[in-house]
């Protein structure tokens, strides 16, 4: 089904919603397919093909909103979805945040790999499995999941918005651990997205370093004493912490109920001068980045935190209406952290006592940012050097304070096709 056919379905959905009683309506209509290859314990196990259809309907009756979704373009199924959607809206209370995007410019976007080359994809994956294990005999790929995915989508509303996109991409990810006799490491995972099969997959992200580190983790030991020191977060872990901060302090829910500790901080310092975070789906390193938002606005890059100053809350149209803060220019999915000047080695060399954190397994942080959890796939730093892998080691702190205590950001960055993230060093972390 091509884009024009999807647009016809979208228009039909909007007509049906209005005819059924909606004052305003929005719909998202998507189709696509995926081919997935799986391996377990270094051996192929499954090939899966899924064809998809999806319709999400939203109706406003006055300021009351209802949503219904279905996975069929069958007219009878759509009619039933319309009935559900109108019923849901009719039973809701009004909310002044329920508005639709006004029409600006409608665009048709297209990108990525439009057709899969499954033979070549398979060859790349077979090569990848070999590359991962070359020289790392103790390493086990517990699972490999790789996919070619193609999707088309149309987002339209009754104010004249009609955006469309179609794109295809490859993605792969592994979960792995190392084993040697009775010794076994924590699992870890790595992966990337791409729209080309030109490069060996082992060259994406910082896999070689992570895989080598996994072998070293076979010798992991608990830290001998509790201390307060500097934690260097590896890129995927740094991204997770900043994502968590964004959710706790800058997202719609915590701003609407006013529990965010950043509520009064727009335009003020919330982090060290060293930190600049942007969301840029147009960055050339991002694969198939977002081109329009869930509301139907054309996406644009924006700064979230610039030299430590909070520049933008991460709210969509609903959140903007509810809070009075400006709408974020995209859905905050492609994080780009500006690199620093020091190398990772130079940063580590400057730390007397600390920890290099590969993965964090922690409880959901408290609303004020207090967190504690286990540092996984991590290494002790002592006297400016890495001093062996650690196990059963907890770290704790406060995420808001952590951002203020960033001491260094590395000049190396890691790109996995979805974000570009350096190593981030933070002082004042309790290690026990």
């Amino acid at each position, binding site marked *: 089904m091509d884009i024009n056919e999807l647009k016809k379905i979208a228009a039909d959905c909007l007509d049906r919603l209005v005819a059924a009683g909606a004052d305003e309506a929005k719909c998202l209509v998507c189709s696509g397919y995926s081919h997935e290859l799986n391996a*377990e314990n270094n051996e*192929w*196990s499954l*090939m*899966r*093909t*899924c*064809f*998809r*259809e999806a319709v999400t309907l939203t109706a406003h009756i006055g300021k*009351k*909103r*209802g*949503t*219904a*979704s*279905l*996975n*069929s373009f069958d007219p009878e*199924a759509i009619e*039933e979805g319309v009935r*559900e*959607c109108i*019923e*849901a*809206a*009719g*039973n*809701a*209370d009004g*909310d002044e945040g329920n508005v639709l995007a006004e029409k600006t410019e409608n665009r048709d976007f297209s990108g990525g790999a439009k057709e899969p080359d*499954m033979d070549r994809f398979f060859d790349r994956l*077979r090569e990848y499995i070999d590359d991962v294990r070359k020289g790392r005999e103790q390493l*086990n790929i*517990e*699972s490999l999941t790789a996919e070619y995915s193609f999707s088309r989508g149309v987002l339209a509303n009754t104010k004249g918005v009609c955006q469309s996109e179609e794109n295809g991409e490859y993605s792969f990810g592994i979960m792995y651990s190392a084993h040697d006799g009775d010794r*076994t490491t*924590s*699992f870890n995972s790595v992966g990337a997205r791409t729209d080309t099969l030109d490069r060996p997959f082992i060259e994406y992200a910082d896999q070689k370093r992570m895989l080598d580190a996994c072998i070293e983790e076979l010798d992991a030991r608990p830290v001998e004493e509790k201390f307060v020191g500097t934690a260097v977060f590896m890129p995927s872990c740094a991204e997770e912490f900043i994502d968590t901060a964004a959710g706790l302090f800058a997202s719609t*829910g915590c701003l*609407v*109920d006013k*529990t965010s500790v950043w509520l009064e901080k727009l335009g003020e310092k919330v982090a060290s001068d060293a930190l600049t975070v942007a969301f840029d789906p147009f960055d050339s390193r991002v694969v198939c980045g977002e081109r329009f938002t869930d509301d139907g606005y054309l996406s644009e890059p924006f700064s979230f935190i610039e030299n430590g100053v909070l520049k933008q809350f991460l709210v969509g149209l609903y959140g903007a209406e*509810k809070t009075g803060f400006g709408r974020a220019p995209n859905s905050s999915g492609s994080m780009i952290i500006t690199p620093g000047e020091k190398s990772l080695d130079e940063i580590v060399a400057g730390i007397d006592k600390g920890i290099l954190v590969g993965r964090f*397994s*922690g*409880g959901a942080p*408290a*609303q*004020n940012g*207090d967190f*504690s*959890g*286990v540092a*996984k796939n991590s290494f002790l730093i002592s006297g400016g050097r890495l001093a062996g892998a650690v*196990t*059963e080691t*907890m770290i*704790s702190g406060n995420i808001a304070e952590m951002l203020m205590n960033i001491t260094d950001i590395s000049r190396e960055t890691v790109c996995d096709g979805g974000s570009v993230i350096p190593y981030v060093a933070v002082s004042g972390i309790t290690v*026990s």
Partner: protein
Amino acid sequence: MDISLLDKYDASLPDETVLRVQKSYSRRVVLLCGDPVGNSSSVAGGVCARTYRKGVYGFASLPEYTDAAIGTVLARASENAAFLGSRAGKKDAPLPADFFRGSLSPRPFVPVPQGTIMDFARAIDGYIAEKYPSLASRTVACRSDCRDKLLTVGAGVCHQTMPRSYLIISLSAQAADGSGTVDVFEVLGGGEGYFTDYYTEPSDWFGRIDAIYEELMKKAEGVFPDAGMCDCVIDSELAGMLAHEAVGHTTEADLVLAGSVAAGRLGQQVASEKISLTDFAYEAFGEKAPLPVYVDDEGTAASDVPIITNGILTGYMTSRETSTHFDGMPVRGNARAFAYSDEPLVRMRNTCIHPGTDKLEDMIASIDKGYYLLDSGNGQADTTGEFMFGITRGYEIVGGKLGRALRDTTISGVAFDMLKTVDMVGDTVAWSSSGYCGKKQPMPVSMGGPAIKGRVNIGGR
């Protein structure tokens, strides 16, 4: 769902092929400080086929139920098995079979109107808003979902419906020390069934809400625990999470094959002899299990898996293929798929530590300095058995008595090490069934247990 959709394919299915039709329904209402931030329904369904050939699986799905769609997924699954099989270099190996043969009589799907759920949520929210106006925030969420599926492996068509419904509230208040807000999150009732099976009269739940508010006020005055190893009474919800996250996952056969801590330890002492742990299929301790599974998504008849028996590791959970790696280990219905487009994976069902004979008050009285831990916000565990649970509700124990409430903290440990320290096991089992287990796909599971007493590492501030 009409069984005739698959009946005519039952006798003619190719060897080692599973054909499944499934429709999944859900309804969700979320009120944030009274605002309806979630008010949605969804339905997603389709057909899938999976074929096993030359040691690999081919799978395909389509979002339709027609004969043409069934023909397409059968052909595509076969093509995929051929594509991968010709490249994988594996050999054909027979898979063990213990297919469900018989009939199930599932309760018909009952769509509860969205308005009924919204009215109920609104009444609950109104009560909280009026009685406790000083709260920093409140969230009331109602959700109801159902998976309705037909499946055949050529041994008769099985029909199961799996509905669940829950009311969840989250309350926040300012901490007494001015450090921000504290919150309490709790699932009120619910379980297998449709929304109105559990929730018809909002006032039935007001007493529970009052109790949650009292807990929140204690937590607002709460303290952080002293970090380090300590004696703890871990109540049922956490014991269930320990059973599921820290032990259960390590005994899923695919993770055992990947080298989990349970690999090669069958027959060994891995816990105190007071500990027995089972993954129940559809009955537990003489009653219906919270989320019963009668047949899995490979067509295998479901039965219980005794994982730990009196401290000895006694079993793994398997699929048909993974069972071939463990000589003589039976298949017991643990291969489960979430959506119509998902392939079956080795999953838990109703995983629970067996009750002992101790009274909760005696367990608390036996600790001079320690903690009584009740609820968890989330938990993660490693295949090494190392676990971490966020603790959202707990109390100090001082001189055998409960003391001040705790602020949010974390506990960690290594499951088999921790379970060896258990010296008291409570006599009452409680279950939780509202969560989803995440492992490539989400999956409704239940977990439970009695209170247990042992030693864990608790985080401070």
